[in-house]
């Protein structure tokens, strides 16, 4: 992972073409949600050792936000999906 990402739209690309936004498993709370929900959304991270979902933007390519499922210890990438498709599928 740390070297290459396979963008579903552009193919295999070097890491330099991407920027990382962070945890992709977080769901933005409703505006009326509790302070705690908002605090957790903005400040708390599961930060697992192992599989994680992360947003990588293909800034120098298609500029899409991708959801990269990868292992934070082995750096193996399990899947890469389009961020919008992921969000829609997960009912956001």
């Amino acid at each position, binding site marked *: *992972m*740390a*070297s290459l990402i396979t963008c579903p739209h552009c193919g295999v690309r*070097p*890491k*330099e073409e991407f*920027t*990382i*936004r*962070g*945890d992709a498993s977080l769901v933005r709370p409703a505006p009326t949600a509790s*302070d*705690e929900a908002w*605090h*957790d959304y*903005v*400040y*708390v*991270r*599961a*930060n*697992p*050792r192992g599989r*994680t979902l*992360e947003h*990588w933007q293909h800034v120098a390519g298609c500029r899409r936000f991708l959801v990269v499922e990868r292992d*934070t*210890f*082995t*750096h193996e990438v399990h899947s890469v999906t389009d961020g919008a498709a992921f969000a829609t599928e997960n009912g956001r």
Partner: protein
Amino acid sequence: MRYSAFSIVKNALSGNLKWKPQWRQAEPKSHYDVIIVGGGGHGLATAYYLAKEFGIKNVAVLEKGYLGSGNVGRNTTIVRSNYMLPGNEPFYEFSMKLWEGLERELNYNVMLSQRGVIMLYHSDGQRDAYIRRGNAMWMEGVAAELIERDQLRKMIPFLNYDHARYPILGGLLQRRAGTARHDAVAWGYARGADRYGVDIIEHCEVTAIRRENGVVTGVETTRGFIGCNKLALAAAGNTSRVGEMADLKLPIESHVLQAFVTEALKPCIDHVIVYGGGHFYISQSDKGGLVFGAEIDGYTSYAQRGNLATAEHVMEEGVTMIPGLSRVRVLRSWAGVMDMSMDGSPIIDRTPIDNLYLNCGWCYGGFKATPASGYCFAHLIAKNDTHPVARALRLDRFARGYAVDEAGAGPQPNLH
């Protein structure tokens, strides 16, 4: 065994056969007053100050690897107290003062070298930001100097004054800042704590935290269960994993930072120089290697290794700041896993669980904090009360809206 020139001569004459281990290989006892998770600089310093300053000596430090295998043994050794925000500056200056007496206090030469840290600026805006910072330092009585270009040129002639992409206009200098020998800090504190009876238990990984009626009673480890009255976490880089064992939700991401060393060279770089046109920083170790680094790799990771793209970028910044580095060869690169907090500042605090204490979020700046962090954490554990210089570093600051955001980058750890 006290160290001195005399002891060196005496031992040398008897074939150096009589030196003793610098700390005991302790066997875990069944129960301690305080267990500290993490045998890095902070955990060891905490144990040392707990015993020395607060009289709590029935303490164990549990380290999953060999002592010092974490970030204390892989950082670029810069110590400084040139912070801008009022929540940080008093704390780091407290640390700096402790550094200044540390070697005699520990009877261990940690090679604190106050050679000066200079941070270069490249634009008027950056200069103003450094002036703001310099004045914030002076607010705490910490000397800072603004070095203008001409003076800088005399001081450090080999910088890229004439062809840099971003002109070098000057720098902010803290003369008292510098470097300290990373490993020696861990070893010195370990030896110091050991002398007060602290058990340092290496190769002992904490795998679970046992709680009874909501109160921590001890830890499961790879060497069995060990009970305690108070549990203190100082597991830099692995904080989230250890915290999870007590269901703590933390404002932490683990990120990798790489560092590099060149082949050994005769003395050529006399200061710690920080490039403001990027994140590059460099100093020369006493062995002659140029030790340097720059920004983090940017993604969360628990692997202590970095990627080539970042490494190449670091070199680009290096030759841009010092063109003469071009032919110097880089010997080794390595990486450390750090816990990046959401505002780039550390956390020393109690947790929602009464006898569980937290020390984390040191990002890439916690080496310099080692003495103060240990001291303040020990203070907190012993007295259940935050040390005055660490008041801004509490865990609830995010909820209350008091982030200590030195970079002004907001809650995105890879931007700090």
